[in-house]
């Protein structure tokens, strides 16, 4: 009896805490994640992880978002001054555009390590206004760049980056090309709701 009461009591506490999270963070159809790095409205039923890498070369705050039913993901990487400086120095990068290009190359090399026949079939580079700041972006489509269920599909990868007050912000949006197309409106909505606090 005591055993069952303890189990039921603990489960009740667990679900009450979840209920409290839902009521506290609900903003319309979204959940709002707000901390000293970012304010972002997240879709309610996604896989979302946030973590901070803290070491001698600076701090990097990351938020990873992926829908539970599509093969695509979004990642935000917010570097502090020290992390930005070290990252740029380590890979010999000079500005936001070189960061975007570097990440594109890194992802392409990674897809080639998974599939030798993967090849870039489309590429676009330019500048865009992001969070009222001028950001650089680079976009590629990699033919047979992503594997799922033993089959290769075309992969879409968009990389955006900007540097403000010597702090680098990177945003990547990638996945199966068709799934990225389905998600593009939602990606835009998420971006519009986001505020980087650095």
């Amino acid at each position, binding site marked *: 009896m005591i055993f069952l009461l303890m189990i039921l009591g603990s*489960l009740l506490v667990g*679900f009450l805490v*979840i209920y409290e999270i839902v009521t506290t*963070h609900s903003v319309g159809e979204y959940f709002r994640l707000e901390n000293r790095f970012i304010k972002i409205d997240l879709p309610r039923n996604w896989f979302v992880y946030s973590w901070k890498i803290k070491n001698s070369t600076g701090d990097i705050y990351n938020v990873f978002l992926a829908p539970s039913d599509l093969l695509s993901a979004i990642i935000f990487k917010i570097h502090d001054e020290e992390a930005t400086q070290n990252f740029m120095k380590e890979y010999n990068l000079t500005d936001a555009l070189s960061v975007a290009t570097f990440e594109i190359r890194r992802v392409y090399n990674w897809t080639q390590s998974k599939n030798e026949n993967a090849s870039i079939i489309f590429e676009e580079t330019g500048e865009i206004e992001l969070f009222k700041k001028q950001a650089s972006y680079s976009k590629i489509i990699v033919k047979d760049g992503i594997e799922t269920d033993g089959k290769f599909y075309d992969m879409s990868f968009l990389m955006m980056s900007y540097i403000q007050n010597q702090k680098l912000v990177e945003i990547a949006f990638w996945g199966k090309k068709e799934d990225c197309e389905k998600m593009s409106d939602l990606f835009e909505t998420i971006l519009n709701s986001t505020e980087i606090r650095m």
Partner: protein
Amino acid sequence: MSDAVTRMDIVHSAVGGGICFLGTILLSSLVNILIQRILIALGILTVTVFENFVIAKAAISFALIYLICGFLGGLYTGYFVENNLKILLPLTGGIGFTGFTVVLVFYGGLDLTVNFLEMIILPLLGDIIGAYLGGYTISWPSEGEEVVEEEISLNLEQ
């Protein structure tokens, strides 16, 4: 009835701890999947990103993993050991907890300093309390109750 802890008592307690440990390994992955499925079904999977979710998950894990596995280990120990359950049942829970923690540290890269409440306090408490409850559930009369025999006589002459 001797009160000394025998070698077999310790072996049974260790086997109980092993049952607790194996149960924890099995249930921890099942419970993680279960929590994820429930949240997806409720349409609120995103709650996992918030800091308070750690508390919710710890409470649910305490109930569905550590208490249950401690209970199972305690059932085994209580069934085979008659004396000194007060000493041997915490040993059962402690062995289950230690085994699981060692696996998490060496194979899961667990940082014990960061997840102190979630990974140390609650699992240890759950395993030990579960082991006590399991052990005394199965061998309650041997330590908890004394059998008192009284002669009952019925006087029919009155």
